[in-house]
């Protein structure tokens, strides 16, 4: 077990190193001199030169890279060119809406998606199954922002049931916080529900044809026990894997959803950063999301041992 975690850790570091090099080069290749940008327009050449020296931009690229890595490991993600404040501070200010949306969407889509998938697998070709096929075709094809505007139009503008846009922080009341997140969560969740349901269905179908399912039936187990105890636990590993891998997809959706619903989250931060050419922010968000992705997938791998006793590392 320990050896496995160690091995996984090493490969995780390798992946992160690749990401790091990639992102670092990406930004060094960016047109425009960061020093000139910091100095502002019409700055004296001497000032720019001294800023270059300060930032270490005159050192060889590998040296710059090592210094950059060291800073990041020390928690220093640099300073926003536009806002002039530490990137980490800006990100942590924007974290709450993004995390709220991501976690609510996860909860919604895993509960609904898994149940939907199980029911569809239980009666293949039945009503639920055909409903899922139609639903997932739509869920895969309609982009988050289109669903978002549909929801806003029908549930907020036309009926006034829910607020149109915006975010209320958690500490200003659970009710308003939740009400503002309903539409974003549903908009982002629909595609995700379809995805989780499809995977669940496929995984369940495989398990349902196993010999031990027949044994369970021969014991007199009820349909409920067969599906939710005997089959689901066996189907769990692939479902979990796919949920872990699709995390990156979820974050992509979060960026769009935040724009549609005007949520002051990380996604908005990035979009604004592009318009301002604020590279340190883009860079840091990329590093952090990909680090989170790798960690989540490591956690998923370790969670296998809880589900399937045959998996021992």
């Amino acid at each position, binding site marked *: 077990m320990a050896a496995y975690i160690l091995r996984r850790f090493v490969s995780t570091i390798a992946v992160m190193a690749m990401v790091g090099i990639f992102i670092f080069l990406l930004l060094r290749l960016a047109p425009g001199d960061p020093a000139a940008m910091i100095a502002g327009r019409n700055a004296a050449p001497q000032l720019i030169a001294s800023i270059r020296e300060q930032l270490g931009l005159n050192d060889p690229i590998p040296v710059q890279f090592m210094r950059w890595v060291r800073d990041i490991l020390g928690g220093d993600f640099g300073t926003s060119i536009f806002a002039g404040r530490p990137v980490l501070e800006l990100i942590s200010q924007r974290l709450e809406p993004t995390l709220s949306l991501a976690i609510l969407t996860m909860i919604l889509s895993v509960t609904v998606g898994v149940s939907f998938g199980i029911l569809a697998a239980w009666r293949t070709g039945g009503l639920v199954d055909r409903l899922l096929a139609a639903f997932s075709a739509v869920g895969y094809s309609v982009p988050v922002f289109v669903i978002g505007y549909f929801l806003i139009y029908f549930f907020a503008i036309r009926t006034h049931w829910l607020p149109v846009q915006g975010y209320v922080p958690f500490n200003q009341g659970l009710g308003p916080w939740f009400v503002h997140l309903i539409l974003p969560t549903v908009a982002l969740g629909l595609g995700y529900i379809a995805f989780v349901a499809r995977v669940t269905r496929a995984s369940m179908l495989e398990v349902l044809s196993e*010999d031990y399912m*027949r*044994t*369970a039936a*021969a*014991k007199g*187990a*009820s349909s409920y026990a067969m599906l939710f105890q005997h089959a689901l*636990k066996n189907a769990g590993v692939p479902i979990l894997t796919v949920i872990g891998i699709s995390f990156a997809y979820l974050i992509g959706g979060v960026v769009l959803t935040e724009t549609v619903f005007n949520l002051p989250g990380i996604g908005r931060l990035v979009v604004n950063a592009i318009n301002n050419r604020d590279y340190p922010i883009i860079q840091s968000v990329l590093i952090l999301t990909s680090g989170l992705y790798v960690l989540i997938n490591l956690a998923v791998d370790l969670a296998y041992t809880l*589900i399937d006793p045959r998996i021992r590392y």
Partner: protein
Amino acid sequence: MQMHQTARNDVLLELRDLETRFYGEESVTRALDGISFQVMKGETLGVVGESGCGKSVTALSILRLLPKVSARIVGGEVRFHGCNLLELSDREMRKIRGDQIAMIFQEPMTSLNPVYTIGHQIAEAVQIHTKASRSVAKAKAEEMLRLVRIADPERRVSNYPHEMSGGMRQRAMIAMALACSPELLIADEPTTALDVTIQAQILRLIVDLKERTGTAVMFITHDLGVVAETCQRVIVMYAGRIVEQATINDLFASPAHPYTQGLMRSMPDPRRGRQRRLPEIPGIVPSLRDPIVGCSFAPRCPFAIDICREKTPVLRDVRAGHTAACWRAEEVMGA
């Protein structure tokens, strides 16, 4: 012989004209084509035949465990204690399964759920059919493991299937099947997937337990040798039909169907010493997709005459308690 005089209330299970079909993409397979037989209380009945003759389908039809999408029972009755199982609701059927009729399967490697402990899976059977608490069921599971002679049952209850050998898993399957003291145990090729030495142990275990509990056993196998060791009465199946039915002694003394005869000749017999070569039955099992005219065994039968290819023989008594579906049964017995 005494079978004939048995009182009706000694009949535990009776199949009448059972017909099961499989539906493929463009073809229909008549997997069972009018099967009728009885299982008496406490007896051991062997069901013998080549792969694909319908032995397992018979077992699955009795318990209604056939795959819902592709298979259907289209006719006949399965009477258990005189009550037709085919007319029960799913709920009522579940009460029978595992409680009054239990089954063990051919593949001990894949027939146990890999993510639950053996103890959990045995206890589950107990809890489904009794109001036993979790701890009582666990204790019962341990007791059952001891009964099937698994060493160290206190420790084994918390083992997962992958931590046990094939023989041990099959013992655990038997423990699970017998946990609710069923009146009928259907054993579908329980030893086929095991090593020869383990096979003998498992067979002895089933016979032993049967004697101790008084459970009737329906023993499905392709191995006449296994039947000889374990059963009192035998049914021989071929191409979805029963071709012969007799007590074990009658069958081995004078088989009345050429197919049974063929099966016996292809058995190695240690008393005859080293044989040059085991005779085999020429030809292959006919496809059950096309309607069969005449006797389904006729193309492979050394006794076949014109009538065999034209009219389907029905089961008839060739002597007391011995039936066969062959136009020339008398000649076959004499041969």
